[in-house]
């Protein structure tokens, strides 16, 4: 019998106190897009030139600035559903700054590809997706985490497929959507089993779920918990693109619009990796004996697959996709090292994020040249399946051979690209060196020597991967003239900022290492 009754005492509802101040970076990122879509539908003149780009980058930078003001905060928010600590704040900073850079890369990409009508939607989806990422980083509750991951991913599925005239983007979006939906299902199943074993979805309660009414400790005594952890691990491994759950990465990175590829490789991957680390450390810390071997296998496979399979690739976007799988290996090593690795994890995530944004950004800008003569149009026609289509975005099909003479055609961009590639390879005096060093030292400090050995080996092999690109740009030069480039000034600013950070932090890494110290909770 269903009985409807009013609540006798409404005061019995203990509605959580909303800490507006501490939540403001997240709220800015979530509400700015809603304001944008509302204003631009009422005031059509808002949609002109670079205004939406400036708005998005401004909102993201505001969010980053507010994050920086919260620096010494360390507390639970919203009745313990979210947390704000150094770990969260570094994650928020990476995501917010990343979104600003991506918005600047998107600036005239959208116009050039003929999607000016949709410029508002691209920016809105980007910002809401980033807000989902910020929820993931701060989540202290598995349900919050799951909703955050879905906001992050579903907006990304749409962004990948927004280039509607490009079949390869449609294919990428569909592949990503189907596989992503399955991995979300596996992840949710894992959450359900963990809830079944412990009776809670809060990370802190799972860790100390204590004894149930029979006096048993379900966390320690139940095999249900182990299956739940394994399933959640699989879901996370897919989201960060770790081998053997990586097979979607090259296809999707190649097919997606290049600025969106940069977004997926940076902010999305970092948000998922930080959420991964948080759950594994805070909720399943007692089970580290059980999950550490799995994480180390994922790390080794990612390192090996990323570097070795990457060597066999010709297409530049696919090479960078495999390189991002290789980077995930290092991030997983930092997660493996538990508390010893938290600083390495944050340092690697931060340095990796702006290096990869810069790399994809330059790839995109190299193809943004003045329209050339009609005779070369045929070269832009590519065969995809049975459909002959005009390849609107030539970065998708760019191979190592196409880079020959790039140092003459794009002297500035080639130079910047080389610096970013050296950083990804871990050459000293770039930030990538310190990041790789920290990850390897973290492995050594927990006596995982084999893992550290694999990391060094993979770093060497991956260095070949990056040097091949530099060689293609500088040594295989033909007698090409400087191209008449036609990229947005904003994109150039974003890329130059990435390079300056790479070199600056490479020579003087203290600011970033100060930022991430004491991040372990």
């Amino acid at each position: 019998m269903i009985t409807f009754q009013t609540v006798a005492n409404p005061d019995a509802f203990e509605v959580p106190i909303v800490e507006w101040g501490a939540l403001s970076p997240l709220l800015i990122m979530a509400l700015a897009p809603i304001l944008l879509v509302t204003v631009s539908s009422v005031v059509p003149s808002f949609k002109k030139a670079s205004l939406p780009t400036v708005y998005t980058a401004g909102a993201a930078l505001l969010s980053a600035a507010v994050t920086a003001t919260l620096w010494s905060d360390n507390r639970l928010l919203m009745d313990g559903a979210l947390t704000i600590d150094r770990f969260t704040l570094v994650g928020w900073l990476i995501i917010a700054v990343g979104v600003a850079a991506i918005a600047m890369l998107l600036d005239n990409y959208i116009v050039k590809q003929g999607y000016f009508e949709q410029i508002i939607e691209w920016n809105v989806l980007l910002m809401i997706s980033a807000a989902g990422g910020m929820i993931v980083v701060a989540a202290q509750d598995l349900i919050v985490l799951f909703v955050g991951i879905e906001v992050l991913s579903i907006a990304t599925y749409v962004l990948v497929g927004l280039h509607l005239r490009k079949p390869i983007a449609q294919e990428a979006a569909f592949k990503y959507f189907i596989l992503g939906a399955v991995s979300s299902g596996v992840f949710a199943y894992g959450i359900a089993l963990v809830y079944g074993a412990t009776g809670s979805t809060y990370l802190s309660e799972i860790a100390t779920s204590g004894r149930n009414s029979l006096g048993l400790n379900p966390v320690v005594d139940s095999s249900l918990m182990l299956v739940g952890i394994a399933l959640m691990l699989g879901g996370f491994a897919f989201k960060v693109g770790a081998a053997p759950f990586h097979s979607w990465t090259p296809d999707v990175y190649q097919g997606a619009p290049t600025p969106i590829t940069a977004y997926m490789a940076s902010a999305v991957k970092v948000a998922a990796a930080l959420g991964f680390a948080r759950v594994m450390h805070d909720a399943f810390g007692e089970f580290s004996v059980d999950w550490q071997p799995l994480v180390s296998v994922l790390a080794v496979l990612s390192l090996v697959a990323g570097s070795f399979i990457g060597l066999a690739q010709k297409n530049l976007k696919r090479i960078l996709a495999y390189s991002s799988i290789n980077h995930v290996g290092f991030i997983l090593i930092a997660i493996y090292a538990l508390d010893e690795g938290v600083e390495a994890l944050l340092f690697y995530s931060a340095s990796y994020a702006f290096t990869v944004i810069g790399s994809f950004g330059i790839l995109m800008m190299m193809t943004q040249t003045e329209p050339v003569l009609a005779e070369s149009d045929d070269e832009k026609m590519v065969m995809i399946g049975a459909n002959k289509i005009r390849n609107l975005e030539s970065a998708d099909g760019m191979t190592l051979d196409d880079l020959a003479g790039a140092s003459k055609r794009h002297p500035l961009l080639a130079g910047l690209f080389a610096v970013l590639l050296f950083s990804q390879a871990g050459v000293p005096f770039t930030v990538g060196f310190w990041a790789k060093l920290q990850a390897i030292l973290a492995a050594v400090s927990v006596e995982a020597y084999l893992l550290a050995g694999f990391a060094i080996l993979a770093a060497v092999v991956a260095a070949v991967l990056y040097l091949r690109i530099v060689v293609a740009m500088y040594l295989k030069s033909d007698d090409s003239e400087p191209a008449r480039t036609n990229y947005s000034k904003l994109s150039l600013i974003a890329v130059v900022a990435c390079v300056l950070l790479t070199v600056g932090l490479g020579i003087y890494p203290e600011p970033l290492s100060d930022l991430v110290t004491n991040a372990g909770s």
Partner: protein
Amino acid sequence: MIDVVVFGVSAIIVLGGALGVVLSKNPVRAALSLVASFLAVAVLFVIQQAHFLALVQVVVYGGAIVVLFLFVIMLLGVDKVEDLDLPERSQVVAGIVSGLAFFGLICAGLFVSGPGGDEGNVALTGQIGRNPIDSTDDINQLAADIFTRNLVPFMATALLLTIATIGAVVMVKNSEADSSLPEAEVN
């Protein structure tokens, strides 16, 4: 006793319906098997005193979602077997093997005792961490839960719905975008 009988009958319908979804060659029959499965799940919820969940199960899943499925089947005109690309034999085998492996994994989680022995096994003891909720007024419970403990996910779902709406609109509207650029010549 009556609970056991009701559970047995509904469990058979749940599984039968699920098998029907997978095995029936006709998409419309598959969709209708899904309705049977959903409705039987609703009965299982009622046995557990989760009346509101049962109601939602019938209205949302049994009603709205299956109607959407049927609409799509009819709009795409794939209501006959010959319209479908049935999976290859190797795909079927791979599907069955991975399905059984997953089933084995879940069974292991439920019925194989962990390091703590039988006493720690949730499925054998029926005990989970939190005390069972007094289920006489599950709607009030739900309301209280949404506005207190689960307020954040409830709010975050609003973002999810926003991107779903914007995403759907932009992907449909996009198709007639800027005709000044060359269209893809499909086929």
